[in-house]
């Protein structure tokens, strides 16, 4: 347990580690791509700043050129200050532009536009402006753009820039040339309107231009302080050395640095020299976050994270669920294993018990070969133990198939009449043994032939009936009802099979689990009854496989009623229209329901039926008819009746009224016990309950002399005398058994040791040499199926159509189907039931005769 817990933790840790590793990868990858993209954006921003520098430079050069043109003209003309001013005034194009001519020594001069608030005051003074002090103009003028910082125009108070040049003016007072500074003055507002980054994504970007000291020539909104370097130092931690290096870098190259702005935001400061000026630098600044455009990487991160988390949680839940299911399955397997162990233990006991009987009784029989009675008794008991053992083995095999899901139906056409007869025949010994009151009622059984898996249907009916018989105390009652109704399924008949007993019943707790394999009710009475605990499980599986339902009503001590409802397809083949010649029939039974059913059946066959509920009443009616000369054509009398039984009634009819009226004796049981007495009393024949339509038809026709389909008496085996059967059997013992049994019926047998020998023998013999082949399936060299196929493929028509019946231990329905598909005519399961063997031989012979 602790180990499992450790494993769980290990798996969880491994999962988490993998998730974390993936997330780290995603984060690193995102960071890498984001960083890459960010760097590209920075490069782009630097390029844009460079472009802006070029645009600005072009603009400044243009303005400077105008100033230079004026200066050249003035210098060439030897003008006075007034003349030069007048010339420039005449040259003005821009409304807001002006020009100032200033003597550097006095810092006074003239303006081309009058002072604010005057119309004729053109004098201008730069004494207090602090713009023109201490500038060495000589090295600059005419070589580059020469522009002042932003300053307050002393004439109108506007923040302005001035492009400068020097001119030489004629001074009338001293009659000499006098140097002056020419300033082409432009309001900054003019420039600011043109001076913005064009890209919409750079809306928060700002531009500035600084001189070599870092002071702003033109200051954009995003820049603070009066100097870039003050701006930088105000909001960024630095030491003097680093600051100096940075300023050197900014003022001497093109590139970028990262810095914090006044909001504490990280910004990218791009810089590039303004080439046409002396030591000026163009600056661009933009918040770094504006350059982080790949935000989808984070989206990817969150999506991957969420995905992994969901996956992890789902996996965890799935694993937990799987573990639970596995644990449940393990518990079930354990329980099943225990159940099987218990079952095997039980089976071991249950198998050993009959085996013990067989071995022990065989030993006893072997030691007393001369004691015929003792030997017969031992053999009878061995037979009983063998049959039980066979049932046990069949059940084990069936439940094995049920559990493995390999149980399949093998439908074939069969007679429900035979099925019921078989059911009764099988159950009769136990009913008689336990002296049970047994009733079997049928109704509306109009169709004899149905199409389903007869073997499984028998199994269902027998299992339920045998349980009822087994668990009903001696002297109790078991009644069976089989009712055919119209089915909602097209082409089917709804068969409702009801078995009610007055047995020990079942507890509600057991009813809940009774269909589970290996379950048997814990009851001292049950423990004394042989059973595998598999019967009901098999029955339920088969009912469900056939699309039916099984219900049970039970009360401990009062009895149980099982109801099985199946929709069974009708076979294509049905008996030809069964109509009797007009006959008068008297039917006698104390059971009114049976009586009415029989009357209905007889009338449906075209007979005129009358009924009597007792022997005396029947005698009276027969006598009256006889007296009137209208004897009944046939009288059918139930054996067991109160007051006067059937045999006595027959005896009285024969002795008192008429000796030649055909009389059939009805019995719900095997009539072998009363056969001699009944024949002696004058019974012409016997008929078993329930009275099927076809049975009545056959029996009546047989009695009144018409040819009909009927079985030979079971104890008359003369019809088998001289038959010649080939037995393909590789096992010597099995060969000996079948050979001796058949020989006891006067049948001549030959042996083929395997399929190949069998084929060769058939190919070699003359036509009609064999009436039938019993074919084992599993044989060396060539198996029975291949042998059959080869025989069916022979050119000799007789050989190709010789009847072949499988006689094999492969007893499942699919084995039967396989045999039939191979071309066989029937199937007998090992261990063989001699009655079934004889019955099969007769069926084959009859079929051949009909052909």
């Amino acid at each position, binding site marked *: 347990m602790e180990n499992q817990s450790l494993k769980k933790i290990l798996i969880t840790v491994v999962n988490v580690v993998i998730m974390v590793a993936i997330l780290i990868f995603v984060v690193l990858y995102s960071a890498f791509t984001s960083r890459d993209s960010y760097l590209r954006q920075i490069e782009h921003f630097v390029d844009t700043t460079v472009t802006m520098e070029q645009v600005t430079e072009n603009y400044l050069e243009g303005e400077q050129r105008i100033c230079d043109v004026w200066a050249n003209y003035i210098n060439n003309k030897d003008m006075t200050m007034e003349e030069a001013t007048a010339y420039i005034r005449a040259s003005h194009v821009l409304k*807001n532009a002006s020009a100032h001519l200033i003597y550097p020594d006095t810092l006074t001069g003239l303006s081309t536009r009058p002072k604010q608030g005057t119309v004729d005051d053109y004098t201008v003074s730069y004494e207090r402006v602090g*713009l023109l002090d201490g500038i060495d103009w000589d090295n600059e003028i005419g070589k580059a753009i020469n522009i002042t910082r932003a300053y*307050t125009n002393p004439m109108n*108070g*506007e*923040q302005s820039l001035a492009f400068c040049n020097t001119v030489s003016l004629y001074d009338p007072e001293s009659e000499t040339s006098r140097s002056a500074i020419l300033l082409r003055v432009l309001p900054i507002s003019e420039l600011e309107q043109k001076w913005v980054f064009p890209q919409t994504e750079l809306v928060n970007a700002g531009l500035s231009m600084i001189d070599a000291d870092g002071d702003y020539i033109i200051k954009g*909104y995003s820049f603070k*302080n009066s100097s870039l370097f003050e701006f930088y130092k105000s909001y960024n931690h630095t030491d*003097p050395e680093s600051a100096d290096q940075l300023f050197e870098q900014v003022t001497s190259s093109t590139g970028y640095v990262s810095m914090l702005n006044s909001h504490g935001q990280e910004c990218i400061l791009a810089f590039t020299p303004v080439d046409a000026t002396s030591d000026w630098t163009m600056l661009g600044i933009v918040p770094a976050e504006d350059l982080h455009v790949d935000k989808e990487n984070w989206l990817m991160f969150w999506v991957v994270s969420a995905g992994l988390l969901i996956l992890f949680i789902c996996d965890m839940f799935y694993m937990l669920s799987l573990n639970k299911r596995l644990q449940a399955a393990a518990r079930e397997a354990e329980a099943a294993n225990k159940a099987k162990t218990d079952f095997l233990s039980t089976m071991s006991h249950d198998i050993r018990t009959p085996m013990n009987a067989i071995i022990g009784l065989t030993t006893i029989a072997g030691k007393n070969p001369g004691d015929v009675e003792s030997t017969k008794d031992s053999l009878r008991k061995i037979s009983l133990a063998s049959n039980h053992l066979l049932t046990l083995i069949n059940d084990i095999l069936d439940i094995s198939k049920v559990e493995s899901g390999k149980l399949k139906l093998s439908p074939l056409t069969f007679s429900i009449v035979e099925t019921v007869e078989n059911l009764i025949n099988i159950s009769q010994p136990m009913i008689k043994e336990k002296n049970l009151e047994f009733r079997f009622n049928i109704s509306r059984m109009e169709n004899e032939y149905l199409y389903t898996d007869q073997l499984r249907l028998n199994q269902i009916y027998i299992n339920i009936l045998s349980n009822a018989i087994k668990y009903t105390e001696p002297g109790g009652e078991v009644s069976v009802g089989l009712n055919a109704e119209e089915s909602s399924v097209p082409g089917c008949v709804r068969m409702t099979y009801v078995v009610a007993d007055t047995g020990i019943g079942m507890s509600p707790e057991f009813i809940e689990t009774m269909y589970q394999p290996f379950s048997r009710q814990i009851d001292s009475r049950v423990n004394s009854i042989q059973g595998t605990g598999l019967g009901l499980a098999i029955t339920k599986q088969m009912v469900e496989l056939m699309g039916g339902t099984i219900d049970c009503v039970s009360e401990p001590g009062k009895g149980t009623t099982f109801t099985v409802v199946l929709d069974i397809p009708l076979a294509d083949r049905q008996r030809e229209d069964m109509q009797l010649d007009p006959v008068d029939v008297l039917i006698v039974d104390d059971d009114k329901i049976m009586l009415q059913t029989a009357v209905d059946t007889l009338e449906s066959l075209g007979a005129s039926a009358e009924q009597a509920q007792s022997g005396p009443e029947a005698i009276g009616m027969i006598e009256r008819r006889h007296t009137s000369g209208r004897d009944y054509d046939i009288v059918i009398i139930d054996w067991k009746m109160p007051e006067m039984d059937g045999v006595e009634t027959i005896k009285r009819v024969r002795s008192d009224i008429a000796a030649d009226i055909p009389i059939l004796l009805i019995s719900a049981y095997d009539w072998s016990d009363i056969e001699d007495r009944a024949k002696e009393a004058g019974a012409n024949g016997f008929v078993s309950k329930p009275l099927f339509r076809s049975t009545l038809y056959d029996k009546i026709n047989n009695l009144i002399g018409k040819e009909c389909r009927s079985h030979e008496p079971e104890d008359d085996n003369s019809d088998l005398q001289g038959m010649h059967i080939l037995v393909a059997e590789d096992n010597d013992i099995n060969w000996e058994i079948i050979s001796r049994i058949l020989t006891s019926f006067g049948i001549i047998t030959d042996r083929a040791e395997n399929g190949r020998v069998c084929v060769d023998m058939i190919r070699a013999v003359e036509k009609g040499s064999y009436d039938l082949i019993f074919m084992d399936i599993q044989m060396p060299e060539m198996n029975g199926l291949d042998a059959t196929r080869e025989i069916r493929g022979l050119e000799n028509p007789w050989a190709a159509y010789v009847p072949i019946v499988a006689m094999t231990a492969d007893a499942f329905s699919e084995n039967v189907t396989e045999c039939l598909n191979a071309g066989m005519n029937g199937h007998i399961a090992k261990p063989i039931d001699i009655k079934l063997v004889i019955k099969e031989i007769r069926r084959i012979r009859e079929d051949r005769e009909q052909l």
Partner: protein
Amino acid sequence: MKKIMCILLTALMILGLVSCGPVKQEAVIDEKFKPRLDTSTSCHINVAGGYDNFEALEAEFDRFNDHYPNVELVFTKVDDYNNMIGTVLNGNDAPDIYVNYSWMYGRDQYKSSIDHAENLSDPALGLNLNCIRSNITLKTDDGKLPMVPVFANTYGMLVNNDLFEKEGLSVPTTYRELVEVCDAFRKRGYKSPMMGFSKEETTSIFTLTSYPYFCGTVADDAEAVKKLNALDPPAGEYMRPAIEKTVQFFGDGCVDLEACDEIENNYDAVILRFFEGDVPMMAGSGDTVSGTEKRESRYEAFIDAPFSYSFAPIPMSDDGAYFLDMPNLQFSVNKDSQNLDMANEFMRFLISSDELNEMAEIKGLMSPTRDLSFDSMYAAFGEVPESRILSPEEIGLTDDALVQVRQAVFKVGTGEMTIDEAIAGYGSYPLT
């Protein structure tokens, strides 16, 4: 019983908490600036002044942008500000808010600067004028308030606190203590316990020491003020106590004038000399103090041996020091501003204790607000009793009269004149 008591106490506590909560909340809300205009308003506000660099105001711009992110505020330096502001206000680049000075009241050449100013005492504007010390909130004769101070100025001395601590001395609060402290320092090897700029009259050590004392001598004498303002030479006698006190001060050996003469100007050089770390007291103005913080990282002597310092009034009287409270920088709103509402909104934002203190702290100047304790640099001025806080404007002394006093003291201090000569020269000193 205990249970009931517990329940009752718990209920009372909860009630107390619940009832206290909103009051506190309200108090906070009351002090917080609440925008009155649409915060998405987009406009441009130009503030004009004479500073090259107004980092403190730009910080306020950023803080205002927290409320109005789309308002672009810029500070524009106007060259030759005092002379040009009138022209600027009448031109195309007229600012929305501009720096103004109360000394311009009544002077024709600055009439435009006063005339363009909106009356900021209008209650509709919602300015919290109560946060500013009333003696520096100066109205015109007709009761209007064209400008409000955003910084204050005073005269005093930078004190090297580490030196005082090292020598086990306390910052003096009376003249006697001052002399004793100087004597103590001198005995411990400090040649000039107090220094100051002495080369020119403007904010010279003579002015800084005598001017508050002089104001104290005439503060309650309206007749004297009247005569002094008239520049009547006999009024020079009102200067005598102050000049004699100055002479006494220098005679008491507190100052080595030769050492002071080495200080080249009244700003950088004063700070540089103080940062040398061997001067216990350095006379200066608030303007000088405002430059100290930035220079801490520039002067190697201070970088190598930093020390703590503060600004304190110079105690020239045995009764204690005078706190000469003067407006330094005042803001006016251009009543013709195209964005007048937003300009007023910015002023409403700015005129609060928090913002003015914040701005003053960044700038290093004295805050105009009532509470000076927030700034350790000026905290000593907050301890001066109200009776010894003087405002030349409130006293009524004109700038011209003050120029006469400063000149006279300077000439006596530098030995150019005797006390009598200086007093006799009252009214004859050139006006700058």
